[in-house]
């Protein structure tokens, strides 16, 4: 069976701004990335009172999820699921909690609940009622995977009808010493990218609600995993730009995008009706 799925939503928040595959909002000149100030605009139609209480990586994940899910026309709780891929995971919360351990009054229970990288997925699942099998996948920064292969596996095995694949990292500058020197450069950013995928073969109807089709092919030859440091979030950022119709030089024209692993290639092709 050829495993294939369709990407039907894309959302992002990163140093360039936030938005989905159609619309990008840029940060005001001189502004720092600040999900707190963003929250009231983003969630004004369906308020999210707890947003300010989430840790930073959860905030980023929820913003990207919110942007990607806006095109969703129907929901089905236990057929929807989410995956998050993260390199630094709960690092910021770990630091906050460890510092609180020595403070008067004792350690902070709230900070502790965010010291699990999977809490970001929990916040997304709670907010969007996703009750299917969720996954948090910590990954070394040198590997290019962005969770799409795992999402594809879930929807093709019919464990979920839709899977939200997130890549999220948020590391405060003070945490840099906690990361190995050769990994620091690519992790200095705060970002989250979300790709909503739906299972089954691409629909053959003339009217498509999808952005791109995705399939996996075996490599002819197994190769070793790439060991050169990948800019964390880099592949996800590139895919997001591809889906938005802008390649690295801001020009249109590239119609397929590949994510490679040792034995397989994920090939993502723009849906026919989205190709200009």
């Amino acid at each position, binding site marked *: 069976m050829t495993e294939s799925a369709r990407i039907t939503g894309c959302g992002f928040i990163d140093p360039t701004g936030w938005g989905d595959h159609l619309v990008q909002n840029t940060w005001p000149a001189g502004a720092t990335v600040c999900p707190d100030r963003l929250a009231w605009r983003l969630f004004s139609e369906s308020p999210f009172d707890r947003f300010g209480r989430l840790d930073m990586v959860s905030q980023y994940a929820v913003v990207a999820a919110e942007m990607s899910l806006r095109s969703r026309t129907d929901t089905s*709780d*236990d057929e929807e*699921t989410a995956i998050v891929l993260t*390199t*630094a*995971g709960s*690092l910021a919360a*770990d*630091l906050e*909690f*460890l*510092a609180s*351990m*020595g403070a008067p009054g*004792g*350690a*902070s*229970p709230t900070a*502790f*609940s*965010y*010291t*699990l*990288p*999977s*809490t970001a*997925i*929990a*916040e997304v*699942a*709670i907010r*969007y*009622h*996703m*009750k*299917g*099998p*969720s*996954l*948090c*996948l*910590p*990954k*070394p920064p040198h590997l290019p995977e962005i969770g799409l292969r*795992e999402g594809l*596996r879930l929807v093709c*095995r*019919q*464990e979920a009808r839709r899977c939200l694949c997130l890549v999220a990292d948020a590391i405060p500058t003070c945490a840099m*010493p*906690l*990361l*190995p*020197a050769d990994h620091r450069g690519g992790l200095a950013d705060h970002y989250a990218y979300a790709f909503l995928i739906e299972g089954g073969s691409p629909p053959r109807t003339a009217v498509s609600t999808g952005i791109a089709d995705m399939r996996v092919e075996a490599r002819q030859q*197994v190769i*070793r*995993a790439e060991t050169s440091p990948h800019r964390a979030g880099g592949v996800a950022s590139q895919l997001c730009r591809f889906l938005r119709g802008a390649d690295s030089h801001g020009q249109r024209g590239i119609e397929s995008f590949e994510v490679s*692993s*040792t*034995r397989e290639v994920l090939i993502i092709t723009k849906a026919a009706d989205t190709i200009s």
Partner: protein
Amino acid sequence: MRQDPIAVTGMGVISALGRGQDDTFAALQAQRSGLGPLSIFSSARWGHIPVGQVPSHVHIPSGGSRSMALACAGALDAFFQAGLDKLPSAEREKAAVVLGACTGGMLESEEFLRELLQVGRSDVRRVRYHTCANATEAVALRLGLNGQRLTVSDACASGAAAIAMACEMIASGEENIAFAGGVDTLTRLTLNGFCSLLVVADDGCRPFDAHRKGMSLGEGAAFLALESRRHALARGAEIHGYLAGWACSCDAYHPTAPDPAGDGAFRAMRAALEMARRQPSDVSYINAHGTGTIDNDLAEAAAIRRLFGERMPMVSSTKRHFGHALAAAGAIEAVVCLLALRHQAVPANLGLRQVDERVAFRPVVVPAPARLNVAMSNSFGFGGTNCCLVFSKAAEGEP
């Protein structure tokens, strides 16, 4: 969906009960609790809490973080029991590694941070093992594997979820062989964290007991060597049991508290049974998640009651034997289920004096010989992650 059972050809376990299946089973039969004093670090506020620490006399590989060492110990034991060292390297090295982990190198990173906070500087080499994925890489390197590597961090369901993911890879034909398991160590962060939630028992956990005070922390690692039944039979491997079904779900309820109705747990158990093409009445034994907290035990009991009704199998939680080893728990308890099926003996739910009247079953309180064909293992974690594994005994799976 039709599903051939996945064969377990090797097991490795290291925990508060020692290292290896034989020591582990002997301890379960002897009703020995591994809970005891904490010694791998000191804690002025919580050092008196009994924990499930891997005994200092137990041999673990040196080098790297404690997580890496425990994971390598568990993986090596599974590797050699499965006889994979006898496979041609070209075939062997393609095996996948899927590891559940939450604490990663935190035990070592904490020392760095403490020194940094106290004197303003520390040796950054201490934090080179910080991320969870380091143990996965270490296992792959130690076993000489060059295939797919995945780390799963789904809180206390991590180890079970890793096993489920590995089974998916084999069932789909993506992989022939996979090592799947879980690892976590005791850390100051988790000790202080769970204590800050007021969910830790100062007298050791008593799952399902009417007067239970909470959980006990533990540590350890466990691995299963998994392959398709066809692959195992073709190379003449001994099969120790089967993964007949698996399923995961999410409560989508609260970041730390479980859904009191246990709906997510129920859905995971039901889906795992459906995959295994079994009825609830086929299940002989449930190894409960049973942490000993008020909330978890009630939610799990509600889910079990809803699925099994009056046809209740034998149930026990083994958390007072091992402590709650977090990401390793689901993998350790997978080994417990497989040992139960092999030896046809159910382990006891230690610490139980009087069952909570809100729990609809009476856990097994002494190790009991029993006719077991199918066993179920539950693992539930913070964030509402749920994973259920269904095992069948080796003889039943033979063609």
